[in-house]
């Protein structure tokens, strides 16, 4: 036991000595929470548009004012001719163009029908779709006004309630995601690199010939990262509660328990990578490309898993972060208890055992 403590102290010294890495490790979650919390939003607003007005009559101007008043659109001041629509799109200055034909008002009131055109830059399909919908709604609204206050008969109205997240903030989605990502980064990459580093610099041999059990060498390497990760989990939770106003609805104890399980999963993954690779660069690239990217892709916090082709959906089941993400979301946001997430926990547990068995089988106590 005394030996073990000595080894753990050695590893802590390694970690604490490298100030730059340490700074990044603690700074990363903070910066990520800030970026996700305050900079990134899926909401579409302030989109620049131009209005090509051939009609220049009262109706077209009234509609223009209405569009300009909406927070979704910003009308570019420059008056443009139709030929310039194309080049404005190419310069990337505008997202949408609205064209009023000549005699717009006249057609509308005398023939009871007038048409106008919306041209969207559909190189981003979602934005094009959303903007077209917003604009159509504004025009429909204008038409309602035009027709006076008389309401049409047989109205169906809807009352929509947004559960869990009434303001449609992105925070609810990404805090669990950032947690999974940071834990993955700290545990998988750091563990893998620090073990491979001993191999690369030749000090692994020294550790292996010591009277200390090889398996304990590995465990003592994992301990500092376990502690570091728990500190990170705590800081992410504190940030989300106090800075982002995202309360923890479920049991905190359960949340930490599940986090510890996921940390152990990641540590075993890091162990597996370190057992299989010989150089730090290879270990880094494998953990980066092979582990981190799939986590971002398949855990469901940035990309909707249900939209993916079926083979990818099947692959996503093998990604531990996906299950952790579901667990955190259920506990933190929905406030559910263990009875709702025992299945996910069991899967995570299974993956961990599998990873540990495989890496311990491959762990060689003799160097080639």
């Amino acid at each position, binding site marked *: 036991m005394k030996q073990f403590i000595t080894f753990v102290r050695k590893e802590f010294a390694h970690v604490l000595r490298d100030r730059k890495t340490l700074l990044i490790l603690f700074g990363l979650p903070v910066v990520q929470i800030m970026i*996700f919390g305050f900079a990134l939003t899926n909401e579409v*607003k302030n989109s620049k548009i131009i209005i090509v007005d051939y009609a220049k009559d009262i109706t077209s101007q009234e509609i223009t004012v209405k569009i300009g008043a909406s927070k979704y659109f910003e009308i570019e001041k420059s008056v443009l001719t139709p030929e310039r629509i194309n080049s404005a799109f190419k310069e990337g200055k505008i997202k949408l163009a609205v064209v009023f034909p000549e005699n717009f008002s006249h057609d509308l009131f005398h023939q009871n029908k007038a048409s106008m055109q919306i041209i969207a830059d559909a190189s981003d399909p979602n934005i094009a779709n959303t903007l077209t919908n917003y604009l159509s709604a504004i025009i429909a609204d204008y038409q309602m006004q035009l027709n006076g206050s008389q309401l049409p008969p047989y109205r169906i109205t809807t009352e929509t*309630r947004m559960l869990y997240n009434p303001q449609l903030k992105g925070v609810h989605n990404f805090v669990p995601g950032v947690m999974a990502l940071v834990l993955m980064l700290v545990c998988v990459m750091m563990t893998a690199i620090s073990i491979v580093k001993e191999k690369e610099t030749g000090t692994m041999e020294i550790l292996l010939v010591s009277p200390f059990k090889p398996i304990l060498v590995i465990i003592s390497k994992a301990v500092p990262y376990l502690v570091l990760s728990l500190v990170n989990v705590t800081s992410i939770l504190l940030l989300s509660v106090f800075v982002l106003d995202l309360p923890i609805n479920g049991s905190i104890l359960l949340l930490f328990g599940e986090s510890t399980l996921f940390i152990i999963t990641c540590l075993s993954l890091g162990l597996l990578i370190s057992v299989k690779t010989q150089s730090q660069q290879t270990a880094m690239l494998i953990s980066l490309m092979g582990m981190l990217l799939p986590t971002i892709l398949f855990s469901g916090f940035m990309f909707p898993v249900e939209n993916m082709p079926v083979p990818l959906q099947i692959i996503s089941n093998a990604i531990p972060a996906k299950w952790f993400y579901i667990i955190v979301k259920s506990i933190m946001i929905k406030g559910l208890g263990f009875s709702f997430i025992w299945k996910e926990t069991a899967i995570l547990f299974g993956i961990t055992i599998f990873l540990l068995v495989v890496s311990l089988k491959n762990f060689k106590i003799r160097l080639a």
Partner: protein
Amino acid sequence: MRTIKFLLQKEFRQIFRNKAMMAIILAVPIVQLLILPLAANYEVKNINIAVVDNDHSEYSQKLASKIIASGYFRLTGFNTSFKDAYKLIEEDKADLILEIPHGFEQNLIKENEQKLFVAVNAINGTKANLGGVYLNTIIKNFNTDIRVQLMAPGKFTIRPTIEITSSNWFNPLLNYHIFMVPGILAILVTLIGGYLSALNIVKEKEIGTIEQINVTPIKKYHFILGKLIPFWILGLIVFTLGLLVSWLVYGIVPIGSIYLLYGFVAIYLLAVLGLGLLISTFCDTQQQAMFIAFFFLMIFILMGGLFTPIDSMPGWAKVITKFNPVSYLIDVMRMIILKGSGLKDVQNHLYTILAFAIILNSWAVWNYKKTS
């Protein structure tokens, strides 16, 4: 010049010798390009809906079948009570509940007005928002259908109507892959360039071989150039491979000039490699370099406008994106590849990136000290 030639020979030999790295450098981008666009699909469809029909009337059933027929929704529950449906939401089996109250059809006809209740699982904001919008559009259409059915024809069309024709330029089929692929290509070029250069000098520091170079008469800028050029060539090769994949798999051919595209990427690579080299000169171990590079690239990529529109960011974040080389590349890639923008359209981007390249590389040369 001769010095650089020998340095290049050394660097290339080291790169080609590490077979595992070569495989990763070339294979990973291709795999990513194959998988990422499939995964990064923000088209919202297959929204799971649970319908609670308390009315069991002709209309309520018509409405339900209209919703399913729209193609956006997948019926996961036809429940008898709201409580059962709510349970489906808790288990993540449903994203949306539509509750049709008792007496829906009767009230609608007799009292001219009837309310429907919709509850949305809003943890995923985008999906909730779009799902709600789709559902409301369908209900509105259903409402119009009913009105037309119930009212005498003609009475309805007297009002002045504005007809909207909308067209989608540059991507008429609203194909999401076409939007994502150029952006992802930009990310791949950035990742490969940034990481490899960041790890390179620091590796020589860690194993100690940098001392051997420091005692030779090799000039500082020779050394940096010797590190820069191989990765620059490698980056262009990866970019070419990426373009080939996007042509063969996704059928995306740049609409604009391919020379302009290469010209821009070539300058951009210089900037990104400069950033990597700069990080490398600041660090002592590969682990440090790796994490610092990760830190910056992560911020650059997240704020680069690949996933979320830059226009919607708050003011301070927009200022940060002005100093983010990745956002320029993503922008230009989309402009040239999808819209066929020319030199005139992208020249401001070009100058900015050129400035980045010059500043970052000079800084790297300046910061690399031959004496420790």
